[in-house]
């Protein structure tokens, strides 16, 4: 297959979901079954094409790209031309990501058919899913920063729309808004980063930028600016991938329908940040990468500590997602490029599975509650669950596989990628001395195993909170359970590497070769051969350690929640403040509310006051003048109330008033004034 047709195929993949979106938004309501078949069908076709692309690309010698001129500047005599191109780049990275996105999207489409049955805006929902898929693909296959930013924001839009799908709920629309605005903050940083790049290189194209960088052409001739550009662009990832300190939106985003959480807020969109860092990897200096690594580490730890104490099934998964994203970011930061990206892929599968599984649970719980006309019990609270194993076997078993995968138990995909990340961090610390990173990485690995099994056990094992409700809970229909099974299958190691204890020999790891850094050597990170050597040295140790830690976490959870050997309440009481901090997400929301939200609101009020009182002054006065003499007295009162400028206008009017008084009606007074005028002129003239 000619490589050019890859471009065409990818365009088809890109536009099929968009077509679905457009058709559904305009005609969805009039279609049979509100057109869910259309959206799902188009995405399925697109998935098939993306598989073709992946296979062709893996067989092909190198990346393919194509572009067209979007806008042209200059080009008149005396001014050079600047072309702004949009275009597509298909390489291994994008091909893999393409398949991941399409796969999850397709599965979520199917799952949604069951999950959202009978929803008010059923067709709208599928339209938005199409829009999201389109936008996400745009990020994946673009060959330039601008288009990435464009789709970056569009993804944010579709996320906004989908989180706010049930906008009648105040919490849903709030969450949607919060997601968008927090993302915007990150995007603003990214935008500034892009500006730095563009203003210097006059191009958005990755290749051209890397090329220029390799040639030693730095933004504003300064390494500091390059680092800054890298960090600023990474801000986009901080927002989108919910990294500390912009992680606050993701848990709230769980207000959206659960399949949406699976697709967007677990598997694909939030991973876009990781993808972006991978895509721009050559651009980052060592300093920038270090910042990235630490951000990732902090995020991973922070989210893990919070996830431990949450009771909402989706919230636990949300925090775990953040934690895992932190992992990926950290991996990229330390230079373990393939490991980080591989974790993205594996995580996409099992986390989507987890979410869909939780969706199934919620769906079932909801149905049961509905039958009992119980509208007060929270269908998502794990304290209200328990013992579901018997009622939902498919869900149970698939969920178990996903949980094992995320905990990093061998034979799962999660073990493969997590192992590589841990190795990468440890290797990095041996090279650079940043020992905090591996420490956090291992701690988080243990915590992950613990809280995931806590969730698993509380949901599926033990006693149901209200035993009489349990019989009402039923397994979900096939359209929902089949995606679960697919994803569970994909969480097995064999799809990524035939060696269950070493990913580096697998096709995926091989395909994701770390690109060469384009930055000057002085500020470049350790090269891959160097890092690889270090990894090789620590690999066995890491593997053993990671298995031990994961099993320990698992066992601890088993002890606490299954055996009840240790009282969770007692532990919480002992932890005291720490527990409350964790339970309350370390008060980030409250802090932001107090500082940023209230600060901004105060600022708006100040601005508004300033506008109305101070600046508006002059015309207030002026307007009143014309509004009639009848209100003079009231107007004079205002003189002393309104602001400075107002005073000036009033002053004018007041002079007018004073001047008027000399018009007394007495002709002799007039004459005296005239004579005074005469005298003044004469004296002035004769004296000077």
């Amino acid at each position, binding site marked *: 297959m000619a490589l050019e047709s890859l471009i065409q195929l990818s365009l088809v993949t890109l536009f099929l979901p968009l077509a679905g979106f457009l058709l559904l938004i305009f005609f969805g309501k009039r279609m049979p079954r509100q057109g869910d078949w259309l959206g799902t069908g188009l995405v399925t076709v697109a998935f098939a094409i993306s598989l073709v692309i992946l296979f062709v690309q893996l067989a092909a010698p190198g990346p393919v790209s194509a572009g067209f001129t979007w806008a042209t500047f200059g080009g008149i005599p005396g001014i050079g031309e600047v072309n702004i191109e949009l275009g597509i780049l298909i390489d291994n990275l994008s091909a893999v990501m393409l398949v991941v996105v399409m796969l999850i999207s397709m599965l979520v489409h199917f799952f949604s058919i069951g999950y959202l049955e009978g929803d008010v805006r059923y067709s709208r929902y599928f339209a938005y899913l199409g829009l999201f898929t389109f936008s996400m693909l745009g990020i994946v296959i673009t060959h330039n920063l601008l288009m990435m930013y464009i789709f970056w924001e569009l993804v944010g839009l579709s996320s906004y729309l989908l989180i706010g799908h049930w906008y009648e709920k105040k919490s849903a629309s709030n969450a949607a808004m919060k997601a968008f605005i927090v993302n915007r903050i990150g995007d603003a940083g990214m935008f500034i980063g892009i500006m730095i790049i563009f203003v210097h290189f006059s191009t958005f194209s990755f290749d051209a930028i890397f090329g220029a960088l390799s040639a030693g052409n730095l933004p504003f001739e300064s390494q500091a600016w390059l680092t800054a550009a890298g960090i600023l662009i990474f801000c986009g990832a901080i927002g989108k991938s919910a990294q500390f300190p912009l992680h606050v939106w993701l848990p709230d985003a769980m207000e959206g329908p659960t399949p949406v959480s699976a697709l967007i807020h677990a598997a694909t969109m939030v991973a876009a940040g990781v993808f972006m860092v991978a895509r721009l990897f050559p651009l980052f200096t060592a300093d920038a990468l270090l910042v990235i690594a630490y951000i990732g580490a902090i995020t991973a730890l922070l989210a893990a500590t919070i996830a431990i104490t949450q009771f909402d099934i989706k919230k636990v998964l949300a925090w775990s997602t953040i934690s895992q994203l932190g992992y990926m970011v950290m991996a990229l930061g330390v230079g373990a490029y393939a490991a980080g990206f591989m974790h993205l892929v594996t995580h996409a599968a099992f986390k989507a599975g987890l979410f869909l599984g939780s969706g199934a649970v919620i769906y079932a719980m909801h149905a049961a509650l509905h039958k009992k006309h119980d509208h007060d019990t929270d269908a998502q609270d794990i304290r209200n669950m328990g013992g579901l194993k018997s009622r939902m076997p498919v869900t149970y078993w698939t969920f178990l596989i996903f949980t094992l995968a995320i905990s990093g138990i061998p034979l799962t995909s999660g073990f493969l990628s997590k192992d590589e990340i841990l190795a990468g961090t440890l290797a990095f610390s041996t090279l650079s001395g940043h020992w905090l990173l591996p420490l956090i990485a291992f701690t988080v690995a243990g915590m992950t195993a613990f809280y995931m099994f806590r969730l698993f056990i509380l949901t599926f094992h033990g006693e149901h909170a209200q035993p009489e409700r349990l019989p009402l809970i039923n397994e979900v229909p096939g359209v929902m359970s089949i995606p679960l099974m697919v994803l569970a299958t994909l969480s097995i190691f064999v799809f990524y590497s035939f060696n269950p204890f070493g990913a580096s020999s697998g096709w995926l790891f091989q395909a994701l070769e770390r690109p060469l850094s384009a930055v000057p050597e002085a500020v470049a990170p350790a090269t891959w051969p160097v890092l690889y050597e270090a990894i090789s040295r620590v690999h066995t140790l890491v593997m053993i350690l990671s298995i031990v830690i994961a099993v320990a976490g698992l066992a601890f959870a088993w002890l606490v929640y299954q055996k009840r050997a240790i009282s969770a309440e007692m532990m919480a009481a002992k932890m005291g403040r720490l527990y409350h901090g964790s339970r309350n997400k370390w008060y980030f929301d409250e802090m932001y509310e107090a500082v940023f939200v209230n600060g901004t609101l105060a600022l708006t009020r100040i601005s508004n006051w300033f506008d109305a009182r101070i600046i508006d002054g002059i015309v207030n006065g002026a307007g009143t003048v014309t509004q009639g003499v009848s209100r003079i007295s009231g107007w004079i009162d205002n003189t002393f109330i309104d602001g400075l400028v107002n005073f000036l206008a009033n002053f004018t009017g007041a002079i007018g008033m004073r001047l008027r008084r000399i018009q007394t009606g007495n002709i002799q007074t007039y004459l005296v004034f005239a004579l005074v005028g*005469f*005298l003044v002129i004469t*004296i002035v003239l*004769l004296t000077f």
Partner: protein
Amino acid sequence: MDLSAVAFYVFSILIIGSAAIMVFAKNIVHSAFALMFTLAGVAAFYALLYAGFVAVTQLLVYVGGILVLILFGVMLTTRGYFEKVRTRTVALLPSSIFVAIIGALLIAVFVTTEWSKMPLEDGQVTMTGLGELLLTDFMLPFQVTGVLLLLAIIGAVLMASRARYPQQRPHPDNPGHPEGDPKGPQEPGQDPQQSADGDKGSG
């Protein structure tokens, strides 16, 4: 000090003194008579300045005409003889100081100025000369003065007379009462006794 100097001082005292009396006198009739002396004094000055014809005219027109006119005015605007003849003078002191400043200024300027002089001989001033000027250089002013006097007469008659044709026509546009005075904020109702066309004066 020759005779002309003596005459000058005598008349200047007369002029200034009677002018002062005119200004400061309480009784308007006294003022009018004081004005007469001033005007006569000025006429004498004219004579001193070789302007005999002007002096005569001054006497004729001013003393004979204007002053009489003023006296008529005084009488017509007072109810009964010498009853309300006394008129008020207000803010006299500040006004006097103020005017004195103007006067002082003028005097200072006049006194300190070195005037270009081309003294006139007595014989140069002849009636013939004046007449010639009147018919040559001052021809147009002379004619115009005629028009001016005509207009002044028309005006004076108009202002002082009562209506010629008492009957009123309604305005073609508006059959309403033509007397209506557009209402301005400062236009109070008229004194019924003094209302329209009730003119008592006569030219």
